[in-house]
């Protein structure tokens, strides 16, 4: 299907999140051919799942919209969703790359009319909302999805439900016979911007994520606050869908911890500070406690910290919470720890707990790839001895959106240099 002709003058960008989109566009707008591959059925990556950015509390879709427009009007960028790099061989200036594309079961004829979803009765856990709600098995990944095209979950392909979708589509857009395909690319440089995953909070087992319903993670909180999220933008306890009267944020849930992620994930302090404003906006009388080791609000982000500190309903308690148990009757959570400023024991009851889980980089793990180096934590390290493949964004260091963009812009120039060196 993908008829992609590229030369060693082209740049491959792996990952269609904020970093990847940026690297691709910055290079393309300087006149270079770029191919972007993204594993999800849509571009935008993790930021599409965020409700707002700190510190401006602005919606990520705003910047994404501009980027998508840049992409729409620039023939230099070609992108492929549901696509992953399968192998890379060669060297700087001359890479052969194989890209594997998973079947979407919906072709380019899709007009997004939504008839397939109407016809489909089967539901799946909504991956966009971290499984907090259900979505039809024929679905648009989210309202702002780019490209705007439906997808069929493989579970209904070849079933009655799949047939129903097929019959409902007036445009011949459903294609149950779609198979995984591969295509080859020739490129001169590669930007690795595969992003990150939230640390598996269940591994911090004493916090009970996955066991206690009302313990959620910070990425889930983003979806909950979003108007297109599982609760329509309301912050509700998962156990009983009631508004929490008090919420605890636990910082460094996994980060700065040699048992989990020894590094600091950099963004979680600000993420929690930001999320207090979500709570405040919706429920002015909700009490919030932030349990922290150090609050890391670098540079002018300090202003945001100061702003949240001024909120009398937000308590900052310096403590790494040692244990959470659930009150089985109410689903409330009992937090134990030491208030290290007073030396007093903490035994506090909360309606809901948000774990500020950290970032885990997506490292290059391919069957075949040139020598790339990662640090002990799995972060990509740009190796001056092996130019040609450059990391960008959170694969290099855990960081916020602005720094990812900055890093990806740098990554674009590095890739251009690889081509210029030929």
């Amino acid at each position, binding site marked *: 299907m993908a008829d992609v002709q590229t030369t060693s003058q082209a740049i491959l960008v792996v990952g269609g999140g904020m970093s990847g989109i940026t690297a691709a566009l910055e290079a393309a707008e300087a006149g270079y051919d770029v191919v972007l591959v993204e594993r999800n059925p849509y571009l935008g990556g993790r930021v599409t799942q965020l409700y707002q950015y700190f510190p401006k509390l602005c919606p990520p879709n705003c910047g994404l919209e501009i980027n998508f427009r840049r992409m729409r009007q620039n023939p230099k960028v070609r992108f492929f969703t549901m696509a992953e790099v399968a192998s890379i061989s060669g060297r700087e200036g001359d890479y052969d790359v194989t890209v594997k594309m998973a079947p979407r079961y919906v072709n380019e004829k899709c007009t997004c009319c939504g008839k397939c979803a109407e016809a489909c009765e089967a539901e799946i856990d909504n991956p966009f909302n971290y499984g907090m709600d259900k979505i039809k098995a024929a679905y648009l990944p989210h309202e702002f999805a780019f490209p705007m095209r439906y997808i069929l979950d493989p579970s209904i392909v070849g079933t009655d439900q799949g047939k129903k979708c097929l019959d409902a589509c007036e445009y011949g857009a459903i294609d149950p016979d779609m198979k995984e395909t591969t295509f080859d690319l020739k490129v001169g440089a590669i930007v690795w911007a595969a992003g990150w995953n939230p640390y598996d909070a269940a591994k911090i*087992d004493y916090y009970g994520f996955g066991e206690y319903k009302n313990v959620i993670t910070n990425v889930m909180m983003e979806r909950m606050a979003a108007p297109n999220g599982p609760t329509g933008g309301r912050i509700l306890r998962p156990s009983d869908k009631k508004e929490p009267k008090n919420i605890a944020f636990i910082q460094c849930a996994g980060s700065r911890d040699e048992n989990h992620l020894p590094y600091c994930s950099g963004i979680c302090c600000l993420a929690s500070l930001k999320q207090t404003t979500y709570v405040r906006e919706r429920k002015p009388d909700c009490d919030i406690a932030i349990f922290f080791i150090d609050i890391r609000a670098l540079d002018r982000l300090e202003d945001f910290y100061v702003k949240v500190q001024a909120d009398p309903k937000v308590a900052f308690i310096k403590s790494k919470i040692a244990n959470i148990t659930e009150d089985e009757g109410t689903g409330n959570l009992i937090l134990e720890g030491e208030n290290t400023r007073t030396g007093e024991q903490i035994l506090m009851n909360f309606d809901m707990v948000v774990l500020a889980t950290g970032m885990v980089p997506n490292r290059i793990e391919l069957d075949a790839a040139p020598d790339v180096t990662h640090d002990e934590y799995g972060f990509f390290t740009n190796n001056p001895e092996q130019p040609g493949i450059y990391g960008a964004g959170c694969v290099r260091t855990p960081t916020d959106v602005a720094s990812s963009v900055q890093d990806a812009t740098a990554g674009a120039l590095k890739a251009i240099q690889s081509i210029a060196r030929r």
Partner: protein
Amino acid sequence: MKYFLYWGCSLEGTGANFLVSLKPSCEALGMEFEEIEDWNCCGASVSYAGANDLAIKVLNARNLAIAEAHAGYDIVAPCSSCYIQMIKVNHEIQEDPQLLREVNECLAEGGLSYKGGIKVRHIQDVLYNDIGVDRIRERVVKPLHGLKVAGYVGCQSVRPYGEYDSVNKPVVQDRLIEALGAKAVPFPKKIQCCGSGIFLPEMDYCMKLVKNILEDALNHGADLISTVCPMCAMNLEMYQDRINDAYGTHFDVPIVYLTQLMAVAFGMDLKKDAALNYNVIPPEGVLQAAIG
């Protein structure tokens, strides 16, 4: 499968029901045991009051060295305290060549040496990973249907290394209990410390810990509590009267070893093999009700 069984001091005394029940029930699963010749005490957790750390390490290294010099089987240590002391020394020696040299310098005084080649295992580890719940289930002739067991894991049988089970949310004992046909009740305090080896000198403080554990087990509907540690068993069972006096409670909860449950479920003799008559708070009632 053959193992060294390092049962330690308690299993010859206050924890005798553990040893008595362990041998037949495990042998019924095909395990063979050999004693470490002329073994010595592990030092437990209070020796620091008398000895420095190296001495306690050497104490354990001696047992490891004897085992290594003989057949080199894995050592099974049913007593949690023995287990933790031995596995800890073993870990540290394996990670720190300097420590290994020092330890060997000391062992040499008694003509021994240790290379670090022995594996130390907990009995739960062996049952779960070497034997497996399927084989255990197959061996059951009198399933403990309807019996609600609070599997008390305690501390040192899983912490700190988490060799075979989660250190904070262990599941292995529950899986083993279920393999016997019983129901493992959820029981958050199953990993809360009972006071361990300082129960005796710090009784006032530790009784409260035990009270919380017993309460939690009963609140979750347990008929009895199972353990895999002679100190846990002792602390949980023998002080219930005192706790009742101190707190006005009415505890009378049988505390059994997991291996006792195994012997019962395997249809063995309730006295000779399951050693139920060793228990001060009699578990026969609930067990008989389960096996009919």
